[in-house]
């Protein structure tokens, strides 16, 4: 137990440079021992997160995203590999000497302190003067719109207010990066959506790097500059929300992000525009990629890319015929399930931007319809 309050000290000789990424993980792994068994939470991670970026770690529970964040915060020590903050090696530096702050999923507010004292906690430990502490705390409480609640105890606040106290308590220290561990998970839908916008606004305003851990793909897509989709301790895909959604690199990403239709088939012939694919259901579609004849392929297409019509669509499109088996009306859109062949079901999302009676007429249950999409809107999954 030491009570040192000195500033973080770099442990390696590497100098901090302006060009260095805010956070960098190199060859990081983490293995937990429980009894005689080993559990690998993170199997090997190389990540560079740039200053000012809103970066999300997205994946199902147990994918290693929280462990990764805890290694950045310093609560877990990597089994192998190096963690750098602003170019400095901090792998062995204790959390209280790291220039990052965390917003906990449970908020972990100090129940015995007022809102203002919660927010001031970090500044007091850093021995920031009283006048400046008061000013920064007041400023931060204004930013999260809790100025009038400063004297209250956390137990007197609503869930959304507590969430904002946790945010203010971390941000007031102006850390190199803010780590957020599923901070919105405990809020109801309306509040969650409002807070997503709020978080994004705050991040833009103050320009601090945000690292956001979530299992909610909608949240990650809405807020992030870049997303790392994690599964089983590895990064499956790293990219912008659009890249990850439009061009999933793996089967896992395609299934995890949004809804996908998976059509299995075989390359039948190559043309000047791509490849003609014979689907297992007996119909033909086109893809933009070239595959040699006889190669098995998995074609994926997003439900909202598909057009539904009664007339045969343009022959330059990929098109299949099927029967509507189910429709779900969702207000702004309608979801159709269309049976193609004997056992291939394709899900189609149609915007309800047309006259409702006309939409009804083309696609009641049991009606025969054409489905079509541009060949460039479908893509192949690696087999």
């Amino acid at each position, binding site marked *: *137990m*030491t*009570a*040192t*309050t000195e500033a973080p000290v770099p442990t390696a000789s590497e100098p901090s440079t302006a060009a260095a990424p805010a956070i960098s993980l190199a060859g990081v792994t983490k293995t937990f021992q429980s009894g005689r068994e080993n559990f690998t939470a993170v199997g090997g991670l190389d990540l560079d997160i740039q200053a000012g970026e809103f970066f999300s770690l997205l994946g199902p529970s147990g994918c290693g995203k929280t462990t990764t964040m805890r290694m950045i*915060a*310093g*609560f877990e020590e990597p089994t192998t590999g190096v963690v750098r903050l602003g170019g400095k090696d901090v792998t062995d530096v*204790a*959390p*209280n*000497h790291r220039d*990052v*702050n*965390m917003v*906990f999923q*449970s908020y*972990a*507010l*100090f*129940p*015995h302190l007022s809102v203002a004292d919660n927010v001031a*906690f*970090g500044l007091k*430990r*850093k021995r920031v003067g009283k006048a400046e502490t008061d000013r920064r705390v007041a400023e931060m409480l204004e930013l999260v719109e809790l100025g009038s609640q400063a004297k209250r*105890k956390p*137990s007197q606040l609503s869930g959304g207010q507590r969430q904002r106290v946790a945010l203010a*308590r*971390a941000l007031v*220290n102006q850390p190199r990066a803010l780590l957020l561990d599923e901070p919105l998970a405990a809020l109801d839908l309306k509040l969650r959506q409002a807070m997503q916008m709020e978080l994004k606004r705050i991040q833009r305003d103050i320009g601090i790097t945000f690292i956001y851990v979530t299992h909610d793909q909608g949240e990650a897509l809405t807020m992030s500059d870049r997303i790392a989709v994690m599964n089983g301790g590895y990064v499956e895909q790293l990219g912008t929300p659009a890249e990850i959604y439009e061009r999933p690199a793996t089967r896992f990403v395609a299934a995890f992000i949004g809804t996908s239709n998976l059509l299995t088939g075989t390359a039948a012939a190559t043309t000047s525009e791509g490849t003609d694919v014979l689907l297992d259901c007996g119909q033909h579609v086109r893809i933009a990629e070239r595959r040699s004849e006889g190669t098995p392929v998995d074609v994926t297409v997003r439900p909202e890319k598909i057009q539904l019509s009664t007339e045969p669509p343009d022959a330059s499109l990929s098109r299949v015929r099927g029967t509507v088996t189910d429709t779900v009306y969702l207000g702004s859109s309608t979801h159709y399930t269309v049976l193609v062949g004997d056992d291939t079901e394709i899900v189609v999302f149609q915007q309800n931007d047309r006259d409702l009676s006309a939409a009804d007429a083309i696609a009641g249950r049991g009606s025969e319809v054409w489905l079509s999409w541009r060949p460039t809107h479908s893509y192949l999954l690696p087999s």
Partner: protein
Amino acid sequence: MRRKLTPYLLALPGWAWLALFFVVPLAGMASLSLTSGNVITGFEQTFNVANYVDAISTYSEQLVRSLLYGLGATVICVAIGYPAAYWIAFHGGKHKSTYLLLILLPFFVSFVLRTISWKFTLSDNGVVLGTLKSFGLLPADFGVLNTAPAVVLGLAYNFLPFMVLPIYAVLERMDHRVVEAAHDLYASKLQAFLRVVLPISLPGVFAGGLMTFIPTTADYVNASVLGGPGNTMIGSIIQTQYLVNNDYPIAAAITFVLMAVLLLGIFSYARALGTERVMEVQAK
């Protein structure tokens, strides 16, 4: 109608119990403490306040000693009980309930028997002192029995679980992430404990303090078994006056003086700890 009555009906046994076994005897004792006479001629209600004057002037020494012993035992219980409760709550892992059972295990033996076993353990040539003496680590005439430390240690030993359990309950219930949050906000381990864990656990210390201080101060078994003639506590005096001398009015008067002193002590203790703040945290 019935629905409205239900909560009161539920509380009825509790109230009846309290009235029958607390209010009635207390009123009886209060009345008894103001009588005069003796057990042969009978006691007569004379509103004899002199009983209180007698009680205070004659037994102030034992009263003060009891408070000091009780305080000493409580301090020892905090010093041993807090770290134990902390360790079980934070590092007990899967075996938390086993460790708690170990703390409670002495309770499975009768209170008097436990104290008597301590008499053997601490006797001049017993397991502890005898062994140390045979190695020449203590002078041959060294003894612990019949001294103040023996009584205070015996009290602390007997009431330790009452301190451990409430502190454990608070530490176990608190969100352990607050410790990480404190580290994350630049607090060292010591600062995290002093600024976060300790203040949050104060209600437990408060409850444990009450539950050890009150019974240890009023205890008479430890003083009569482990102490000598010079270590008499107020509990022994009450017992002797009531059961041996049959001087009921004086026994009752001492009892009320003890109660008044304890209440005074508790209120000043609560003040010092800041009960309002303490209760607010608990109300979470």
